[in-house]
Protein backbone atom coordinates (compact mmCIF):
# COMPACT_ATOMS: atom_id res chain seq x y z
CA UNK A 1 0.00 0.00 0.00
CA UNK A 2 1.47 3.40 -0.92
CA UNK A 3 1.87 6.19 1.61
CA UNK A 4 -0.80 8.23 -0.14
CA UNK A 5 -3.32 5.40 0.18
CA UNK A 6 -2.56 5.02 3.88
CA UNK A 7 -3.08 8.75 4.38
CA UNK A 8 -6.41 8.65 2.54
CA UNK A 9 -7.61 5.72 4.62
CA UNK A 10 -6.48 7.48 7.81
CA UNK A 11 -8.49 10.59 6.92
CA UNK A 12 -11.51 8.45 6.07
CA UNK A 13 -11.40 6.61 9.40
CA UNK A 14 -11.05 9.85 11.37
CA UNK A 15 -13.97 11.37 9.47
CA UNK A 16 -16.24 8.38 10.08
CA UNK A 17 -15.35 8.26 13.80
CA UNK A 18 -15.97 11.99 14.24
CA UNK A 19 -19.27 11.76 12.45
CA UNK A 20 -20.36 8.83 14.58
CA UNK A 21 -19.37 10.61 17.76
CA UNK A 22 -21.36 13.73 16.90
CA UNK A 23 -24.37 11.70 15.78
CA UNK A 24 -24.45 9.81 19.09
CA UNK A 25 -25.21 13.10 20.89
CA UNK A 26 -28.57 13.46 19.15
CA UNK A 27 -31.73 11.84 20.39
CA UNK A 28 -35.19 10.77 19.27
CA UNK A 29 -38.54 12.49 19.14
CA UNK A 30 -41.66 11.34 20.92
CA UNK A 31 -45.42 11.70 20.63
CA UNK A 32 -48.37 13.45 22.31
CA UNK A 33 -50.47 12.71 25.41
CA UNK A 34 -54.12 12.46 26.46
CA UNK A 35 -56.18 14.30 29.13
CA UNK A 36 -55.78 11.60 31.82
CA UNK A 37 -52.06 11.20 32.16
CA UNK A 38 -50.84 7.65 32.59
CA UNK A 39 -47.26 6.77 33.50
CA UNK A 40 -46.57 6.07 29.84
CA UNK A 41 -47.85 9.49 28.84
CA UNK A 42 -45.74 11.18 31.51
CA UNK A 43 -42.68 9.17 30.52
CA UNK A 44 -43.17 9.97 26.84
CA UNK A 45 -42.47 13.57 27.70
CA UNK A 46 -39.99 12.81 30.49
CA UNK A 47 -37.97 10.76 28.00
CA UNK A 48 -37.41 13.93 25.99
CA UNK A 49 -36.00 15.72 29.00
CA UNK A 50 -32.86 15.21 30.99
CA UNK A 51 -32.53 15.43 34.75
CA UNK A 52 -31.26 18.98 35.40
CA UNK A 53 -29.04 17.69 38.17
CA UNK A 54 -27.87 14.16 37.31
CA UNK A 55 -25.71 14.21 34.20
CA UNK A 56 -26.85 12.38 31.09
CA UNK A 57 -29.85 10.77 32.80
CA UNK A 58 -33.20 10.98 31.05
CA UNK A 59 -35.97 12.13 33.34
CA UNK A 60 -38.09 9.00 32.76
CA UNK A 61 -35.45 6.65 34.18
CA UNK A 62 -33.85 8.91 36.78
CA UNK A 63 -34.37 7.30 40.23
CA UNK A 64 -33.86 10.34 42.47
CA UNK A 65 -36.51 12.06 44.56
CA UNK A 66 -36.02 15.27 42.58
CA UNK A 67 -36.77 13.45 39.32
CA UNK A 68 -39.88 11.93 40.83
CA UNK A 69 -41.03 15.46 41.70
CA UNK A 70 -40.39 16.63 38.15
CA UNK A 71 -42.35 13.70 36.73
CA UNK A 72 -45.18 14.57 39.12
CA UNK A 73 -45.00 18.12 37.80
CA UNK A 74 -45.35 16.83 34.23
CA UNK A 75 -48.33 14.73 35.30
CA UNK A 76 -49.96 17.76 36.91
CA UNK A 77 -49.36 19.91 33.86
CA UNK A 78 -50.78 17.23 31.56
CA UNK A 79 -53.89 16.96 33.71
CA UNK A 80 -54.28 20.74 33.43
CA UNK A 81 -54.28 20.42 29.66
CA UNK A 82 -50.77 21.62 28.91
CA UNK A 83 -49.41 20.52 25.58
CA UNK A 84 -46.13 18.69 25.17
CA UNK A 85 -44.54 21.81 23.71
CA UNK A 86 -45.73 23.93 26.62
CA UNK A 87 -44.37 21.48 29.17
CA UNK A 88 -41.00 21.29 27.46
CA UNK A 89 -40.85 25.07 27.14
CA UNK A 90 -41.64 25.37 30.85
CA UNK A 91 -38.74 23.12 31.72
CA UNK A 92 -36.45 25.07 29.39
CA UNK A 93 -37.53 28.36 30.96
CA UNK A 94 -37.02 27.01 34.46
CA UNK A 95 -33.90 24.92 34.07
CA UNK A 96 -32.25 25.95 30.82
CA UNK A 97 -32.05 24.45 27.35
CA UNK A 98 -29.70 21.75 28.58
CA UNK A 99 -32.69 19.77 29.92
CA UNK A 100 -33.79 18.99 26.39
CA UNK A 101 -32.71 15.62 25.01
CA UNK A 102 -32.66 17.16 21.54
CA UNK A 103 -30.72 20.44 21.38
CA UNK A 104 -32.78 23.35 20.05
CA UNK A 105 -31.89 24.31 16.50
CA UNK A 106 -30.46 27.72 17.30
CA UNK A 107 -27.00 29.24 17.09
CA UNK A 108 -24.07 26.84 17.26
CA UNK A 109 -26.44 23.93 17.98
CA UNK A 110 -26.98 23.67 14.22
CA UNK A 111 -23.51 22.14 14.01
CA UNK A 112 -24.82 19.04 15.80
CA UNK A 113 -27.33 18.45 13.01
CA UNK A 114 -25.28 19.51 10.00
CA UNK A 115 -21.74 18.35 10.74
CA UNK A 116 -22.22 14.60 11.37
CA UNK A 117 -23.88 13.86 8.00
CA UNK A 118 -21.31 16.04 6.24
CA UNK A 119 -18.41 14.35 7.95
CA UNK A 120 -19.79 10.88 7.29
CA UNK A 121 -20.30 11.75 3.62
CA UNK A 122 -16.79 13.14 3.37
CA UNK A 123 -15.39 10.05 5.04
CA UNK A 124 -17.36 7.75 2.76
CA UNK A 125 -16.08 9.66 -0.27
CA UNK A 126 -12.47 9.39 0.88
CA UNK A 127 -12.93 5.69 1.64
CA UNK A 128 -14.39 5.14 -1.83
CA UNK A 129 -11.42 6.83 -3.44
CA UNK A 130 -8.99 4.82 -1.35
CA UNK A 131 -10.67 1.50 -2.18
CA UNK A 132 -10.78 2.37 -5.87
CA UNK A 133 -7.11 3.09 -5.92
CA UNK A 134 -6.42 -0.39 -4.48
CA UNK A 135 -8.08 -2.15 -7.43
CA UNK A 136 -6.34 -0.16 -10.22
CA UNK A 137 -2.57 -0.23 -10.35
CA UNK A 138 -1.26 3.27 -10.75
CA UNK A 139 -0.14 4.14 -14.29
CA UNK A 140 3.61 4.59 -14.68
CA UNK A 141 4.88 8.11 -14.19
CA UNK A 142 6.99 9.81 -16.83
CA UNK A 143 10.18 8.91 -14.94
CA UNK A 144 9.06 5.29 -14.58
CA UNK A 145 8.13 5.14 -18.28
CA UNK A 146 11.53 6.48 -19.30
CA UNK A 147 13.21 3.98 -17.01
CA UNK A 148 11.14 1.12 -18.44
CA UNK A 149 12.00 2.26 -21.92
CA UNK A 150 15.70 2.36 -21.06
CA UNK A 151 15.50 -1.11 -19.46
CA UNK A 152 13.73 -2.45 -22.53
CA UNK A 153 16.43 -1.01 -24.77
CA UNK A 154 19.16 -2.46 -22.56
CA UNK A 155 17.49 -5.91 -22.79
CA UNK A 156 17.40 -5.65 -26.57
CA UNK A 157 21.04 -4.60 -26.64
CA UNK A 158 22.06 -7.53 -24.41
CA UNK A 159 20.09 -9.92 -26.59
CA UNK A 160 21.80 -8.63 -29.75
CA UNK A 161 25.19 -8.82 -28.05
CA UNK A 162 24.64 -12.43 -27.07
CA UNK A 163 23.56 -13.29 -30.61
CA UNK A 164 26.76 -11.76 -32.02
CA UNK A 165 28.91 -13.63 -29.49
CA UNK A 166 27.25 -16.94 -30.38
CA UNK A 167 27.85 -16.31 -34.09
CA UNK A 168 31.60 -15.72 -33.51
CA UNK A 169 32.10 -18.93 -31.51
Amino acid at each position, binding site marked *: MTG*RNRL*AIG*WAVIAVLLGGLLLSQSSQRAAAQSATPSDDQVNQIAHQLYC*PVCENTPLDVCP*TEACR*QWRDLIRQQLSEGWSEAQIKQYFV*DQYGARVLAEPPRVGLNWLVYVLPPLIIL*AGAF*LLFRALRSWTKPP*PPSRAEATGMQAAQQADEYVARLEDELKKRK
Partner: protein
Amino acid sequence: MSETTVVPVKRGVPLWAQILIWVVLIGLLVILAITLNRSQKGTAQPGDPIRDFSLALFSGYDLNGQSQVKLSDLRGKVLLINFWASWCKPCEQEAADLRSAWAHYKDAGDVLFLGVDYVDTEPEARAYLEKFDIQYPNGPDVGTRISQLFRIQGVPETYFVDQSGVLRYVQVGPFTSADQILSIIDPLRK
Protein backbone atom coordinates in the same frame (compact mmCIF):
# COMPACT_ATOMS: atom_id res chain seq x y z
CA MET B 1 11.94 0.68 -30.27
CA SER B 2 8.43 0.79 -28.80
CA GLU B 3 7.21 3.68 -26.77
CA THR B 4 5.33 3.41 -23.47
CA THR B 5 2.28 5.60 -23.09
CA VAL B 6 2.80 7.96 -20.14
CA VAL B 7 -0.26 8.97 -18.12
CA PRO B 8 0.12 11.99 -15.84
CA VAL B 9 0.05 11.03 -12.14
CA LYS B 10 -3.28 11.75 -10.41
CA ARG B 11 -3.00 14.25 -7.56
CA GLY B 12 -4.37 13.53 -4.07
CA VAL B 13 -7.02 15.59 -2.25
CA PRO B 14 -7.36 19.04 -3.91
CA LEU B 15 -5.79 21.93 -2.05
CA TRP B 16 -9.09 23.73 -1.48
CA ALA B 17 -10.52 20.57 0.11
CA GLN B 18 -7.50 20.18 2.37
CA ILE B 19 -7.80 23.80 3.49
CA LEU B 20 -11.53 23.37 4.14
CA ILE B 21 -10.96 20.20 6.18
CA TRP B 22 -8.29 21.89 8.28
CA VAL B 23 -10.45 24.98 8.85
CA VAL B 24 -13.38 22.82 10.01
CA LEU B 25 -11.16 20.68 12.26
CA ILE B 26 -9.48 23.69 13.82
CA GLY B 27 -12.88 25.36 14.31
CA LEU B 28 -14.19 22.26 16.12
CA LEU B 29 -11.08 22.12 18.28
CA VAL B 30 -11.49 25.78 19.22
CA ILE B 31 -15.10 25.20 20.24
CA LEU B 32 -14.04 22.12 22.24
CA ALA B 33 -11.25 24.09 23.94
CA ILE B 34 -13.60 26.92 24.92
CA THR B 35 -16.16 24.47 26.31
CA LEU B 36 -13.54 22.52 28.26
CA ASN B 37 -12.00 25.70 29.60
CA ARG B 38 -15.38 26.89 30.80
CA SER B 39 -16.22 23.57 32.46
CA GLN B 40 -12.88 23.35 34.25
CA LYS B 41 -12.89 26.90 35.59
CA GLY B 42 -14.41 25.85 38.89
CA THR B 43 -16.62 27.97 41.08
CA ALA B 44 -16.25 31.73 41.28
CA GLN B 45 -13.35 32.60 43.57
CA PRO B 46 -12.77 35.49 45.98
CA GLY B 47 -11.86 38.57 44.02
CA ASP B 48 -13.71 37.43 40.88
CA PRO B 49 -16.11 39.99 39.45
CA ILE B 50 -19.77 38.96 39.73
CA ARG B 51 -21.98 40.12 36.90
CA ASP B 52 -25.20 41.83 37.86
CA PHE B 53 -28.26 39.61 38.09
CA SER B 54 -31.92 39.79 39.07
CA LEU B 55 -33.60 37.32 41.38
CA ALA B 56 -37.38 37.00 41.29
CA LEU B 57 -38.54 36.17 44.81
CA PHE B 58 -41.17 33.68 45.95
CA SER B 59 -44.30 35.47 47.09
CA GLY B 60 -44.13 35.85 50.83
CA TYR B 61 -40.34 35.96 50.69
CA ASP B 62 -39.94 39.42 49.22
CA LEU B 63 -37.47 42.12 50.25
CA ASN B 64 -39.12 45.22 51.72
CA GLY B 65 -42.16 44.63 49.54
CA GLN B 66 -40.14 44.09 46.36
CA SER B 67 -40.78 40.86 44.50
CA GLN B 68 -37.47 41.10 42.64
CA VAL B 69 -33.98 42.09 43.72
CA LYS B 70 -31.03 43.18 41.63
CA LEU B 71 -27.49 42.61 42.82
CA SER B 72 -26.35 46.10 41.88
CA ASP B 73 -29.12 47.61 44.05
CA LEU B 74 -27.68 45.89 47.12
CA ARG B 75 -24.34 47.69 47.21
CA GLY B 76 -23.43 48.89 50.65
CA LYS B 77 -24.63 45.69 52.30
CA VAL B 78 -22.78 42.48 53.09
CA LEU B 79 -24.50 39.77 51.10
CA LEU B 80 -24.79 36.11 51.86
CA ILE B 81 -26.01 34.31 48.71
CA ASN B 82 -26.94 30.72 49.48
CA PHE B 83 -27.69 28.19 46.72
CA TRP B 84 -29.92 25.36 47.93
CA ALA B 85 -32.56 22.87 46.81
CA SER B 86 -35.37 21.00 48.55
CA TRP B 87 -33.99 17.68 47.29
CA CYS B 88 -30.55 18.42 48.75
CA LYS B 89 -29.93 16.59 52.03
CA PRO B 90 -26.73 18.49 52.97
CA CYS B 91 -28.74 21.71 52.55
CA GLU B 92 -30.98 20.54 55.40
CA GLN B 93 -27.92 20.24 57.63
CA GLU B 94 -27.15 23.95 57.37
CA ALA B 95 -30.72 25.29 57.20
CA ALA B 96 -31.00 25.77 60.94
CA ASP B 97 -27.58 27.46 61.10
CA LEU B 98 -28.54 29.85 58.33
CA ARG B 99 -31.76 30.68 60.08
CA SER B 100 -29.95 31.39 63.36
CA ALA B 101 -27.35 33.55 61.64
CA TRP B 102 -30.04 35.47 59.81
CA ALA B 103 -31.91 36.07 63.06
CA HIS B 104 -28.65 37.53 64.46
CA TYR B 105 -28.33 40.09 61.63
CA LYS B 106 -31.89 40.75 60.52
CA ASP B 107 -32.27 44.02 62.40
CA ALA B 108 -28.72 45.26 61.71
CA GLY B 109 -29.57 46.63 58.29
CA ASP B 110 -26.12 46.14 56.73
CA VAL B 111 -26.29 42.38 56.18
CA LEU B 112 -28.64 40.66 53.75
CA PHE B 113 -29.30 36.95 53.26
CA LEU B 114 -30.49 35.80 49.84
CA GLY B 115 -31.55 32.24 49.12
CA VAL B 116 -31.38 30.99 45.53
CA ASP B 117 -33.38 27.84 44.90
CA TYR B 118 -31.50 25.70 42.37
CA VAL B 119 -33.38 23.50 39.85
CA ASP B 120 -36.32 22.86 42.10
CA THR B 121 -40.09 22.89 41.99
CA GLU B 122 -41.95 25.65 43.81
CA PRO B 123 -44.23 23.51 46.00
CA GLU B 124 -41.30 21.50 47.34
CA ALA B 125 -39.20 24.64 47.73
CA ARG B 126 -41.94 26.33 49.80
CA ALA B 127 -42.36 23.21 51.89
CA TYR B 128 -38.61 23.25 52.61
CA LEU B 129 -38.64 26.95 53.59
CA GLU B 130 -41.59 26.41 55.91
CA LYS B 131 -40.10 23.27 57.41
CA PHE B 132 -36.94 25.13 58.45
CA ASP B 133 -38.72 28.42 59.19
CA ILE B 134 -36.55 30.34 56.76
CA GLN B 135 -37.92 33.83 56.34
CA TYR B 136 -35.24 35.79 54.49
CA PRO B 137 -35.71 36.55 50.78
CA ASN B 138 -35.68 33.47 48.57
CA GLY B 139 -36.34 32.91 44.89
CA PRO B 140 -35.88 30.34 42.11
CA ASP B 141 -32.86 30.38 39.85
CA VAL B 142 -34.87 30.59 36.64
CA GLY B 143 -33.01 29.04 33.73
CA THR B 144 -30.04 28.42 36.09
CA ARG B 145 -28.73 31.81 35.04
CA ILE B 146 -27.54 32.89 38.47
CA SER B 147 -25.88 29.58 39.29
CA GLN B 148 -24.03 29.78 35.99
CA LEU B 149 -22.69 33.21 36.92
CA PHE B 150 -21.18 31.71 40.05
CA ARG B 151 -20.28 28.47 38.23
CA ILE B 152 -21.58 26.42 41.13
CA GLN B 153 -20.62 22.76 41.17
CA GLY B 154 -23.54 21.65 43.33
CA VAL B 155 -25.60 22.57 46.35
CA PRO B 156 -25.27 23.84 48.99
CA GLU B 157 -22.83 26.58 48.10
CA THR B 158 -22.72 30.01 49.72
CA TYR B 159 -21.07 33.15 48.44
CA PHE B 160 -20.21 36.16 50.59
CA VAL B 161 -20.09 39.53 48.83
CA ASP B 162 -18.76 42.61 50.57
CA GLN B 163 -20.26 46.11 50.59
CA SER B 164 -18.35 47.03 47.41
CA GLY B 165 -19.85 44.13 45.50
CA VAL B 166 -16.66 42.03 45.53
CA LEU B 167 -16.81 38.31 46.24
CA ARG B 168 -14.88 37.70 49.45
CA TYR B 169 -15.55 34.11 50.55
CA VAL B 170 -16.92 30.90 49.10
CA GLN B 171 -18.35 28.07 51.19
CA VAL B 172 -18.74 24.82 49.27
CA GLY B 173 -20.88 22.38 51.20
CA PRO B 174 -22.89 22.93 54.38
CA PHE B 175 -21.77 25.16 57.25
CA THR B 176 -20.73 23.45 60.45
CA SER B 177 -22.39 25.98 62.73
CA ALA B 178 -24.05 29.38 62.89
CA ASP B 179 -20.86 30.71 64.51
CA GLN B 180 -18.95 29.84 61.36
CA ILE B 181 -21.29 32.09 59.37
CA LEU B 182 -20.87 34.92 61.87
CA SER B 183 -17.09 34.59 61.77
CA ILE B 184 -17.16 35.08 57.99
CA ILE B 185 -19.60 37.99 57.92
CA ASP B 186 -18.33 40.09 60.83
CA PRO B 187 -14.93 40.96 59.26
CA LEU B 188 -16.72 42.13 56.10
CA ARG B 189 -18.82 44.71 57.95
CA LYS B 190 -17.28 48.17 58.07
